[in-house]
């Protein structure tokens, strides 16, 4: 395997005695779609929060593209090229879809206070470029027609797409998706699958948390399973699917049933 894009070493996080993450180490290669699965409360989202700087890990740390990530500095993580979406959608509800994506461009543009006040040609050119890129991304995720609607007025599926567009606007090298298919119907899931595959094809590495086992197994190159904050197994989907520990901890059913969508929803270890 080539040098990993993301290398997590011994990441640990406690919440007042509850060990949400215990010594989690994994590495993601550039260009991979990497799945992170596990029962509810296994620590998947906590892992995302540590990675994106929302939490400071209590132990271990991350190396991203060859350099360590500063703990607890979200805007630094964005600058370095890590973007994410949220399990419970967190858009800027009172801004339009287009403005939401434009905020995502913040980290890749230069204009500052002086530019905002003077409105010099360079600033205006940059504004135009931001708007253009936002429109492209809305088109890319398939909601170009909703550009001028407030985010809160979008349908659930469209809000999830908007979150992806906003994350892509930061030009990430690693895109972290936290249950992007939650609450989507079969058609929307199929479209999402095409979208994620397309994002990878465009050179972005994807880290995917998802309960829809069918989606994960069909889409991911490698899958890691978390249970009680510990990494149980990390391998290609075909192996993970057959691992007895995984079946016991997460799938709770015979391997052949694991292929059926949503099998993980009720999975409590």
């Amino acid at each position, binding site marked *: 395997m080539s040098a990993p894009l993301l290398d997590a070493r011994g990441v640990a996080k406690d919440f007042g005695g509850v060990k949400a993450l215990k010594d989690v180490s994994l590495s993601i290669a550039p260009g991979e779609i990497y799945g992170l699965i596990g029962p509810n409360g296994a620590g998947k989202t906590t892992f995302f929060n540590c990675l994106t700087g929302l939490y400071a890990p209590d132990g271990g740390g991350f190396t991203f593209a060859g350099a360590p990530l500063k703990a607890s500095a979200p805007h630094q993580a964005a*600058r370095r090229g890590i973007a994410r979406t949220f399990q419970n959608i967190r858009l800027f509800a009172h801004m339009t879809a287009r403005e939401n994506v434009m905020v995502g461009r*913040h*980290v890749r543009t230069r204009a500052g*206070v002086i530019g905002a006040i003077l409105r010099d040609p360079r600033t205006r050119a940059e504004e135009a470029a931001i708007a253009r890129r936002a429109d492209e991304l809305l088109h890319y995720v398939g909601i170009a027609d909703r550009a001028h609607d407030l985010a809160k007025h979008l349908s659930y599926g469209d809000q999830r797409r908007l979150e992806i567009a906003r994350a892509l606007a*930061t030009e990430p090298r690693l895109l972290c998706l936290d249950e992007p298919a939650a609450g989507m119907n079969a058609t929307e899931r199929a479209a999402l699958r095409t979208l994620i595959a397309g994002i990878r094809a465009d050179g972005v590495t994807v880290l995917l948390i998802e309960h829809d086992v069918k989606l994960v197994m069909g889409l991911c190159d490698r899958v890691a399973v978390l249970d009680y904050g510990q990494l149980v197994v990390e391998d290609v989907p075909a192996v993970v699917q057959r691992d007895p520990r995984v079946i016991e901890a997460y799938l709770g059913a015979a391997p052949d049933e694991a292929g059926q969508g949503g099998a993980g929803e009720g999975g409590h270890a």
Partner: protein
Amino acid sequence: MDIFIQQIINGLVLGSIYALVALGYTMVYGILGLINFAHGEVVMLGALTAYSTITGLLGLGVPLPLAALAGLAVAALLCMAVGYTVERIAYRPLRGAPRLAPLITAIGVSIVLQNGAMMVWGRNYHAFPNLVPERQYDVFGATITLLQVLTVLLAALTMAGLMLLVLRTKLGRAMRATAENPAIAQLMGVDVNRIVSLTFVLGSALAALAGLMVSANYSIAHYYMGFILGLKAFTAAVLGGIGNLAGAMVGGILLGLIESLGAGYIGDLTGGFFGSNYQDVFAFFVLIAVLVFRPSGLVGEKVAERA
């Protein structure tokens, strides 16, 4: 002279000034959920700094328009520095503390600034120089001075500029994103601390302008002027819906009109029992009424959605 039109004119002038100050309250509240009670003192510092700069320059023989501009610039720079510093040393360490802590700190900062100003400028009232020629125009039987026209125009232009900044620029988008959800804005690469600093700096610049306007219109500046003015501007912000920029402007103008018309007619209505010296009562009467009947303000959304 038509009293009604005259009071409308006076109310608009006063209201424009309230609106400028109210914007400072509302911007900070929108982003931090903090009532910056020290904001009124920043207005006072703006007025006194402008006073010292302008009288100093006039004494050196600098022509009036130039001295007035320099006064505004120096006052704005000083207020911006004060706003930045206050946020940095008094409010930032309390980010995430219970709401009461920064509120009490704000009152403390207000007292510090007031007493600091008293040490520098003394307890006396200072006569503020006339900044523009005393020209008067007749409007439907009422008089409007050139200074009043300029005050309203400059305030309107400044507010229009602020709205453009907030609605149309990258900086404004970052401010709105931070107001809605600082954690997520940060994940998008917005440096939230920088945005908070900028909000204080911008609000303080507006306060400096307002300070200059108050003193120019009432020909007076003193260390205690910020207290009541701040309270009234806060009332205006609440009246419009705190956290909402358009609300602060509407609230400011409306409060100016209410005060002005109230003061103009209270004597007649009560048979001379109350005089125009009761002007201040109206603002606080409005504050109580809004808090009782419509806490979210005129333009405001439900407070819960903001907080």
